[in-house]
Every structure is written in structure tokens, then in C-alpha cells.
């Protein structure tokens, strides 16, 4: 009978440990002994088992005085810990909720989680209580920053793991060989930090057509994707391909929305799969068009902040990964993220709050991180009809509520970015609001970048590509733009405005060396707004050139004209007006001067542009517009 020691001796500290004998571990007796069923454990075995727990350290070997001092010290140390706990407990429980560094966290949890049968047995109730406490426990931001700081001591490099990932078959293949000027960042492996968010998630709310989900301790708004037919979009791109020379590369890079990556499994049927739309699009495209799939690319980084939580747009980091993927397809150089200057805007609340009024979003703002290129470039801004407005950088001083427009200021410009990348490649980016974030990441890849918003372009796209000497055309809109009414916008700018004049009237300014207007945030200007345009406009001075003041009178009619023609273009009124009512002819007929000019100058043949100049010379335009207004 094996007996266990009833009162095993204990040790105060980790002392010696008697190593178990090998025969005891294997259970196989040595060959010298035989085991019989009636064999009683030997005295040796009995002795061994009582020594399982190592003997206590012989404290009694100390003198009485030493024991008393050590005991007293133990009490002091124990009290130190109790004081530490008490401080922490007081900070968590007793400080008022209106404390400045807890407002944002505490407001999230003003109400205790509701106790329901389902919530309790699913664990949500107790989890919610813990979450509330964890948020209240201390200055959350400080702790997080401290934690990040501590982890920075783990090694000379970045402790965040990045790992090799085999390229997927869905990655677009470049139509050309990679050139030797590929950036060193373009390694054969892509970095991956991802996890599967398509799991059942009970913490989901609905508001104004959005899902508000809680993931990784934060609330995220998801705008649903309805899907739809991409035929119009594909057909338009095919037409563009046919109308442009084969030497011009055309890329299509649809931009996914956050819902593709973060929708919980229990709501999966509420949003269509963008992969289906991508497949449908690529099937319809003719050869000579390179599709760039960034769904898998972004999915490999979904643990990173690639999508804004409080806005429907993607975050600049996603634009970085997408731009990199595009430059691989385009076989151009690409600047790695380490070359950018990082900026942050804390407590960012995007457009979702305004749309949904969600308190969860309100009380869980995010930090908007964006990246400033450090290379040399300058940007010229034009009205949608290509009238030059001003020059400057790519970043603007915008209000917090509209901070996504820190890139490019507004959507209704044509922009030409001139860089110091002397590779002869000129990119035309046709975008929607998502594409704004792409532009800074392409300044190291193309010599010139033209940026056109499909909703604010009064020229003909194909003519523009030819006139501007474009070598690469990239269409980058979010998946919603591939379907529904947005696809018709691309149709309009492709087929319409064939006669609209295209002439770049920006001052020809040489790009000075080391010229980067965006590295100093102090120089950011606010984008011109309708009200601001009426006052004396700010002027941006291209370096080495005298200031060209644009008066309010000159800007005002241009802006109004933009608005007017926008409306007409959207409604098709302009054509109706000209064609159905014959207004122009009537107008010309009434005014003998116009008719004369018209006939002399052959206005119909030469087009609107010449008439415009005539009007300017004669000073007719202004009265004309005034009369019309």
C-alpha cells in the first residue's frame, strides 16, 4: 500500500527539487527486480513518495533577530502591495466619470450591460462588465502608449511580427517585365497581419443602413454593399481601351469597402460579396486592360488600421498597400512607407456619426494616421473645365468633421502633380472620393499625375488622355461606383464633352529641388469654398514666379459656371436647353454683334473656346452671364 505523506513539508521559496528517479518515471522496473501482484511497496518506495514535495528551506537556521527582521520586512512589503492595489482601485472606482482623461472611455459605458438570459449564458454580460472596468481602470490612452513604449524595448527592430505570404493567384499580373528601378520595398513576399472577422458577433447594431459592430474592443461602422450589374462600367472601360492607343496602359482597381473584411458571419447575407463583382468585371473586360485586385491584398492586412471605423472611407494605410499593388502591376518604382512622414489626427469622427447619430461611434473616436511623402512635387489645381485655379501641395487644412479631405481638399478639382520622378510615365487617375488617399503614395512612381474625379470633370476623358500625353490610365473607384448610377458618371465623361477645350493654362513653374509644400503643416491652406471664393482669394506662389492674383470676379463666374454646368450635366439640361429651345441661336439672332462675331469667326466650326476668347476681348461674356443669372 502506497501511503502519501499527510503533512508534506513546504518551502518558502523555490528551493531544491528532488529529481524523480528514471525507473519511477518509466514505470519499468529494472531487470534485477520482478514485480508480483502481491508485492508490497518497499520502505524505499515509501520513503521516496514522502519526498515528492521538496523539503522546506531551513528558516530555523537563522537567528531569532534575523527572523524577526525578515518577518517585519515581509509585513512592510505586503503593505506596499496593498497600498498599490488601493491606489489603483481608487483610481478606477472613485474618480468621477467626468475626469478629463476618462470622458471618452467612460461615456462608452455609461450604462451597465443589460442582464438577459441570452446575454448571461453567452458570456456577453460578464464580458461587458469586465470591459467597463478595464476602460475605467485607469488612463487608457496613457496605458496603451506606455504598453507600446515598453514593447519598443523588446529589440532594436519592430516587435510587431510580419511574415512571409505566398502571392495569391488573384493578384494582377503586370503586363510588362519589372524594371530595374523597382523599389527595394517591392520584395517577393507581401506582409500579412490578418485574422478572420467573419465569425459570429453578437455586438452588432443597425443604424441608417449601416452596421455598427464591436470588434477588438472598438466600434466600427460598416456601410453595406448592395452589389449589382457592372456591365455599364465594363463596357465604358472597353470603349476607352478601343479608343486609346495600345501604348497607353489601362488599369482598373476597384476599391473594396470595409464591409468586405469585417462583416460578422451572422450578418453575411446583408451585404454582397465584392469578389463576385470583381470576377464579373474581369470577365467582361477585353484584353489590354489590367485589373488590379486589392481585396486579398487588404485582407492580408485587416488586423492593421486599413479602414476608418467612424467613416465609410478606407484609411491611408490601405491606400498605401493598394498603391503598392498597382505600382507592381504598372512596373514602376514605389516608395516604402518608411520614407513617409507620419502625422496623426486624434479623436477623429468621420461621416458615419453624422449619418447614423450613433452614440457608440460618437464615444469611440479614432486616430486618423496619414503619411506625407518626402519627395519633391508640386500640384496645380484646376476647375473641372480645366481653368487654372492655384498651385500648392496635396494636403489641406480641413475641419475635423471632413478630415478625409485632408488629401486634395475637395473632390471637384482637376489636379496635376509634377514630381521629381523622371521616368517619363504620366498617370491619369480617374477616381471617386476614395482615390484621394492614393495620390500621395504615387508621387514617387510617376513623373506627372493627373487626378480627375468622375463626378467633377467637364472635359472628355479620351481627349484629355491624348492631349495630356498620358502613358497610364488608372480607374480607381469604390465598388459602389461600378454599379448603380455611379457607373453612368464614367459613361458621361467618356462619351460627352467632346468639344470641350483642353489647354493647360497653369504657369509653367520649374519644380525646384527639394520642393515639398506639405512637410510643414503650417503652410496648409483651406480649400476654396463658395463663400471664400467671393472674397479676396489666397494665392499660392509657384517658386521663382511672380504672384498671379486671381480676382474674386474672375473666380466667381467660374465657380458659378461649374455649378451651373454640373447641374445641367447631371440632369441633361444643357443639351436640352441648347437643342430643344434653340436658345443660343435666338440669342445670337437678337444680338447683332454676336451674330457678326459668330459668322466671322465661324464659331460653330471653331468651337466654344474661340467664342469664349471673343467674348473676353469684347467684354461680352460678363454681361451675358449676368443676364442669364
Amino acid at each position, binding site marked *: 500500500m502506497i501511503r502519501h*505523506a499527510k503533512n508534506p513539508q513546504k518551502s518558502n*521559496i523555490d528551493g531544491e527539487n528532488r529529481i524523480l528517479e528514471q525507473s519511477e*518515471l518509466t*514505470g519499468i522496473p529494472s531487470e534485477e527486480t520482478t514485480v508480483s501482484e502481491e508485492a508490497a511497496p518497499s520502505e524505499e518506495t515509501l520513503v521516496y513518495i514522502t519526498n515528492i514535495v521538496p523539503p522546506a528551506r531551513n528558516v530555523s537556521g537563522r537567528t531569532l533577530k534575523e527572523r524577526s*527582521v525578515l518577518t517585519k*520586512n515581509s509585513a512592510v*512589503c505586503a503593505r506596499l502591495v496593498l497600498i498599490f492595489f488601493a491606489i489603483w482601485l481608487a483610481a478606477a472606482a472613485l474618480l468621477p466619470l467626468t475626469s478629463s482623461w476618462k470622458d471618452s472611455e467612460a461615456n462608452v459605458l455609461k450604462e451597465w450591460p443589460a442582464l438577459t438570459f441570452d446575454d448571461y449564458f453567452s458570456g456577453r454580460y460578464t464580458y461587458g462588465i469586465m470591459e467597463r472596468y478595464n476602460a475605467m*481602470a485607469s488612463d487608457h490612452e496613457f496605458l496603451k502608449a506606455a504598453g507600446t513604449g515598453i514593447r519598443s524595448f523588446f*529589440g*532594436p527592430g519592430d516587435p510587431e511580427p510580419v511574415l512571409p505570404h505566398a502571392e495569391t493567384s488573384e493578384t494582377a499580373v503586370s503586363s510588362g517585365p519589372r524594371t530595374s528601378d523597382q523599389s527595394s520595398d517591392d520584395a517577393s513576399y507581401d506582409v500579412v497581419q490578418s485574422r478572420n472577422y467573419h465569425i459570429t458577433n453578437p455586438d452588432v447594431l443597425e443604424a441608417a443602413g449601416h452596421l455598427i459592430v464591436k470588434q477588438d474592443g472598438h466600434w466600427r461602422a460598416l456601410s453595406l454593399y448592395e452589389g449589382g450589374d457592372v456591365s455599364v462600367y465594363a463596357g465604358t472601360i472597353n470603349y476607352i481601351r478601343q479608343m486609346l492607343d495600345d501604348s497607353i496602359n489601362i488599369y482598373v482597381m476597384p476599391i473594396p469597402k470595409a464591409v468586405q473584411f469585417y462583416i460578422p458571419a451572422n450578418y453575411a447575407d446583408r451585404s454582397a460579396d465584392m469578389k463576385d463583382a470583381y470576377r464579373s468585371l474581369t470577365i467582361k473586360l477585353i484584353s489590354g486592360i489590367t485589373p488590379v485586385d486589392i481585396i486579398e491584398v487588404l485582407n492580408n492586412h485587416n488586423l492593421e488600421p486599413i479602414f476608418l471605423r467612424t467613416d465609410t472611407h478606407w484609411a491611408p494605410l490601405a491606400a498605401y498597400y493598394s498603391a503598392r499593388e498597382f505600382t507592381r502591376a504598372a512596373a514602376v518604382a514605389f516608395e516604402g512607407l518608411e520614407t513617409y512622414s507620419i502625422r496623426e489626427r486624434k479623436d477623429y469622427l468621420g461621416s458615419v456619426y453624422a449619418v447614423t447619430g450613433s452614440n457608440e461611434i460618437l464615444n469611440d473616436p479614432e486616430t486618423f494616421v496619414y503619411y506625407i511623402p518626402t519627395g519633391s512635387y508640386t500640384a496645380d489645381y484646376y476647375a473641372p473645365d480645366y481653368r487654372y485655379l492655384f498651385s500648392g501641395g496635396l494636403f489641406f487644412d480641413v475641419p475635423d468633421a471632413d478630415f478625409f479631405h485632408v488629401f486634395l481638399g475637395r473632390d471637384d478639382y482637376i489636379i496635376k502633380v509634377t514630381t521629381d520622378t523622371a521616368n517619363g510615365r504620366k498617370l491619369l487617375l480617374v477616381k471617386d472620393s476614395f482615390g484621394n488617399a492614393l495620390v500621395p503614395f504615387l508621387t514617387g512612381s510617376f513623373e506627372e499625375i493627373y487626378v480627375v474625379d468622375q463626378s467633377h470633370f467637364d472635359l472628355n476623358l479620351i481627349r484629355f488622355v491624348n492631349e495630356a500625353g498620358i502613358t497610364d490610365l488608372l480607374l480607381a473607384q469604390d465598388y459602389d461606383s461600378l454599379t448603380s448610377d455611379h457607373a453612368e458618371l464614367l459613361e458621361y465623361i467618356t462619351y460627352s464633352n467632346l468639344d470641350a477645350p483642353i489647354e493647360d493654362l497653369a504657369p509653367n513653374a520649374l519644380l525646384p529641388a527639394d520642393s515639398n509644400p506639405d512637410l510643414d503643416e503650417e503652410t496648409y491652406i483651406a480649400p476654396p469654398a463658395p463663400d471664400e471664393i467671393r472674397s479676396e482669394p489666397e494665392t499660392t506662389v509657384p517658386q521663382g514666379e511672380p504672384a498671379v492674383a486671381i480676382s474674386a470676379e474672375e473666380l466667381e463666374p467660374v465657380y458659378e459656371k461649374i455649378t451651373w454646368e454640373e447641374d445641367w450635366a447631371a440632369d441633361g439640361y444643357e443639351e436640352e436647353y441648347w437643342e430643344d429651345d434653340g436658345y443660343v441661336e435666338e440669342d445670337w439672332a437678337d444680338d447683332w454683334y454676336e451674330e457678326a462675331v459668330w459668322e466671322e469667326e465661324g464659331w460653330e466650326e471653331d468651337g466654344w473656346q474661340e467664342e469664349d476668347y471673343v467674348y473676353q476681348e469684347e467684354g461680352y461674356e460678363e454681361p451675358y452671364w449676368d443676364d442669364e443669372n
Partner: protein
Amino acid sequence: MVFTNLFFIYLFLPICLLLYFCAKNVRMRNVILLVFSLLFYIWGEPFWILLLLFSSIFNWFMGIQIDRFRTDSLGRKLTFFSVAANILILIGFKYFSVMAGLMSEHAFPLGISIYTLHAISYLLDCSRGSIKPQNRYLLFLMYLSLFPQLTAGPVVRYSELETELEKRRITSSDIYEGIIKFIIGLTKTVLIAGNLYPVVRTFFGEGFFALSTLGTWYVLLVFCLYLYYQLSGYSDMASGIARIFGFHYPVNFDHPFMCRTVTEFWQRWFMTQVSFFRDYMFSSPVRKEWRYPAFFLVWACIGGWFGVSWNGLLWGIFCGIFILLERKIGEERLKTWPVWLKFILSKLIIVISFGILYFRDLNRLGQFFLKITGIGILSGQNALTDPYTWNSISGNLFLLIAAVLFCGPLRERITESFITSRNTITASRARIVQMILCLILLAVCSFLIAERPDAFMEYWRL
């Protein structure tokens, strides 16, 4: 609820300690411990508390009956039946349900492996007459559900706590040692294991197929360190909390990577579990012709206890093969081998065995062996090295060095020399300095817990 949570460290535990030390006698303290233990369990497992309660009632009742009929055949039958029932509950709720896909590997009842072993040890000790069965159900329930040991061990037998359940004395030294141990355990778990785990999860996750040979070895070593620090850290925290309450747990880990043979590794790794299997499975004499199957069966059980899938069994058998090999070589002959050779060989075998423990997918396990042996390089499936391995090493270099250094008894040696000076006054001040260092560690861990709230969501569930 887990120990590495701000809610536990700064609310649950302080309140529990406060009430515990305000109690006038052991009886009141036991009630408080019981309430908090059940609250701890219900907090995370509101449904599976029923299984724990059923197990406690069943085993308490059966213990009394087994002791009553100990001397005749009914006692043996009752012992067999009750032990078999416990094993079936463990297999059914942990192994079968996970392998059949009925529940995920993180959803089976918390601590079922631990309290089942506790119950089996209690029943077998009752059967052997080495303990008197506990007549008070609530005390038995307290033993079974004691929250320090419930999550991840150690496996503490009833015989080791029998006296302290009803009578225990807590000195300030106990409190001090308990606090130190808890903070050391927290440091191991949060600071080291918690920051090694992302490397394992990331590199052995989706990117595994593109991982190079050296990268595989690197991540494998990281996994070994991670598992050691997590399990030993949790054991230390459990022992520390229990020590504050006046319970003295046995040592569970004794620097297993300081071993020179595979046998020695298992003499130092999760000692309470190994000694359980040794005492209750090895101790029964078997027929000579069955000893090898019995041997491998026991090792399969030891390995299988750690995992939820077949790979745990394979791990145990793999280790058992090398232990048997060492037995056949013989202790005397092994002593003649150079120490460095034994050290390296044993580490190689142990590290490779951890790879078997990690990969449950047969395909991935195959890929794993191709990579570590270098066959993958020859077949072109992977490279010898890759930049991401070096990036990870450089990003975690100091952490890795600390993890490797503190695998051994370095901390204990430093502590010993620190506080056992001949000069009593210096020793006493040194204790306060040690406590301040521990409080700094506690603060560091709190920062890390707050900074990454999900850092320890996927701990090794037992």
C-alpha cells in the same frame, strides 16, 4: 475570467483578499473562498458550472461510499466505476466534442482536465485508505473549485491540502512570498509569453507555407519558450495566490530546459501532472508482457492531457520513445557522454516534439518536418532563410535573450544572493528593493495588458 486581466488583478482579487483577511476564522475564510471560486468559474462559464457542481456532488458521494466499502469487492467496483465515469466525462466534454466539431477548442468546460484529475486522485486515495474522505460537501467543493488552481493547474492532490483545508496559518512571509510569486508568474505570462505568442500565431498561421527552414526553427523555439512561460507563469500565479490564502502548492516546473536528457525534462516539466500519472498509473503492477504497451499508453495519456487532439497523444508517444531509448542505453552509459552533447540532443528532441504538439493538421505537420529537416529546400518548397525571420528576431532580440536566460535558475540565484546576505540589515533592505522591483513589474504588466486587451485571449486551455 483570466488572471491576466485588469479586472481580475485590480478588482476581483483585491476584494477577495480584503474580505478573506477580514474574516475571523478559517470557516468564514473557506466560505469566502468558495463563493469567490464559484463566482470566478461562473464569470467565464455560466453554463459549465453545472458540470463542475455535478462532478463535485458525484465524487464527494462516491468518495464516502468507497471509503465505507474499501475493504471488500464493492469498494473496488465503486472505485472503478467512479474513476471511469470521470474519465468518460473528460473524454466526452474535452476530446470527443472538440474533435467531432461540437464545440471549439476554446469552448470546452474550463479546467475540466484539472478538476477531473483532482477528483480521480481523491477517489483513488480514498480507495487506498491514504486519506479520510471529506464529510463536508462544501469543503470538498471548495477543494475542487479553488480558483487559483482551476484554470491551468498545478494538479494539487487532496492529500496535499487535506490539513490546510480545515486548519491553516498565514504568516506575513506567506503573504510576501505569495505576492512575489504571483507577480513573477504574471511577468512570465504577460511580458514574455504574451509577447512571444503573436510571433507563433503569425508565423505558424497563414504564412506558414512560405516560412523558411531557419524561420521554422526560430518560431519553434519561440513556441517552446511561449508554452513554458505561459504554463509555468500560470502555475506561479496560482501558487502565489494560494500561498497568500495559506495553501502551499507543490512546485510544478523546475527549469525543464536545463535538462540533459529527455527523461530529465519530464522530471522537471509539469511535475504535478507527471507525478499523478506516475502514482496512479505506474504504481499498479502489470504483467511483464504488457509493460511496453502499458508504458506507451501512459505516455499517450500524459501527452494527450495537454492537447485536445490526436497530436497530443502522438507527442506523448514520441517523448516516450526517447525515454525508453535512454532507459535501454542505460544511466551509466549516458553519464559517460559529454554534457554538451546530451544537452543539445535533448533540446533537439524536445523542441521537435513541441512541433508535434502544435500542429494538429497532418498536412501542416508534414510540411513542418519537411522544413525543419531541410528537405523542403531541396524540393524547392521553401528557402533556407527569409528577411522576415531576421526582422522578427531583431524586433524581439532582447525579449528572446531574457526569455532564454530566465529559463534557467538565474532569477533564483540572483534572488538568493540578494536577500541571504550575512549582514541582516542589508538583507532586510534588499527585500524591500525586491518588492519595489516586483511592483515595477506589476505596473509594466498592467501597461501591457491595457495596451493589448486581446493579448491573452487564446491561452492554452486545459
